[in-house]
Structures are given as C-alpha cells and as structure tokens.
C-alpha cells in the first residue's frame, strides 16, 4: 500500500461501518508519539466537541452553551482505534457495528422517539 496523506485523504473523510452504512466523518485523528519511534496513527474520533475545537475557542464555547441548553451532560463521542480501518478510498470503512456507536446516539434516539412515531416512517423502501 502506498503513502496515505492524513490531511488530504483521511481527516474529514466519510466513514462507513462494516455494513457500508454511513456513520459520520473523521472529526479528529490522534497520533501517538513515542521517543525513537515514528508517530503512530492511533485513534479516529467522531465527535462534535472535537469538530468545535478545530474551529476555535468561540466555537467550543458555542458548543458547550448548546449542550448546557439541552441539558446534555455527556458528550456523545466515539473513539475507534485506527486498527479497525479496513479500507481507505473515497470512504473509509471501519470494522465496527454502526448501531453500537456512541456518536450515533442522536440518530438512534430520533429514529425511535421522534421520527419513528410518525406514521409511515419505517418499513420497506419507498
């Protein structure tokens, strides 16, 4: 396998789970630095807080304010080891079960408690 450009081809790329379902984008990548070893690409982060941090202090403040307003205590973020990467292309496939990810909590909650309650929300393809 050739060289992977972390900024151009990895961060912000669409993630899919092992069923090819979209599960978010790479909001942050964590590198592990150890003396005498090359930096290791360790962890994929999917998280609103991580995104906010990339924009700047004001965005972090906004993010916190929204959380406080919604009475949300924990940040719904997922950290997936980079080992779980199966394939890097237009999308990055992770060997994970999308339904169990913490970062998809809102999607699941909306699906069960809001959208799912309106008639015609689920069933066969349209």
């Amino acid at each position, binding site marked *: *396998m*050739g*060289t*992977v*450009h*972390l*900024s*151009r081809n*990895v*961060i912000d790329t669409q993630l899919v789970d092992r069923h090819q379902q979209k599960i978010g984008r790479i909001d*942050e*990548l*964590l*590198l*592990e*630095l*150890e*003396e005498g*070893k*090359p*930096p*290791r*690409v*360790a*962890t994929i982060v999917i998280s609103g807080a*991580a995104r906010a*941090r*990339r924009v700047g202090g004001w965005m972090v403040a906004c993010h916190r304010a929204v959380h406080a307003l919604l009475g949300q205590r924990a940040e719904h973020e997922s950290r997936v080891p*980079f*080992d779980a*990467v199966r394939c890097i292309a237009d999308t990055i496939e992770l060997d994970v079960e999308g339904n169990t990810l913490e970062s998809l909590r809102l999607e699941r909650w909306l699906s069960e408690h809001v959208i799912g309650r309106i008639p015609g929300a689920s069933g066969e393809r349209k």
Partner: protein
Amino acid sequence: MSARTVALSDLLGRTVRDADGRKIGRIEELNAEISLEHGRSDYVVTHFSVGRFKPLDMIATGNFVQQLVRRVTRATGYRRYEIPWDWMDLGDPAHPRVRRREDELPRAG
C-alpha cells in the same frame, strides 16, 4: 517511557523552525505508510510536508492550478520540504523543530 498523544489538527498549520531557529514554513501534510512490526500492522507517519504557506497549498491540488501556482510561486518564494519523521522534534507539539538546518532539507518536486 509512556507514549504521548497529539491531535492531527493541532499539528497541521504549525510553524516549523529549523536547528538555527529560523522559520521554514508550516506543517501542511503528514504522510503515513503501513508498517509491519511486532506482528501487527500500523499506520505510521514517515514524513512531514512543510511549506511556506497553507492557503496556496490548499488551492494547488489540480493540474491547471498547480501549473498556475508553480508559475506564481517562483515570484512568491513558495517552498515545500519533505522532512523524514526522525528529523522532526515534536517534544513540544505546539513548537515543532527540525533537527537540521534549512539548507539541508530535501525540497519537494
């Protein structure tokens, strides 16, 4: 010795200085390759691309623009270095340093 963790977005765009303390540009890209060690495969960073300024690099992705930018860059003094990982001192990730002098660094084509 325990490993430290640093976020990719904290490294991108950081100003890099050389051994003499001169600014040589900003970190524009981290290039990783797969490495097979201790029976496991890991992606590790092999070299850092450090360039004079990021905005130009962001634009300079396509054929046409690259040619255009190359022409313009001669005037603006745009330079890009490919720095092997073991030349880069990330002891303080906010102030990365290269262990060599600027004129020793390999230029990107």
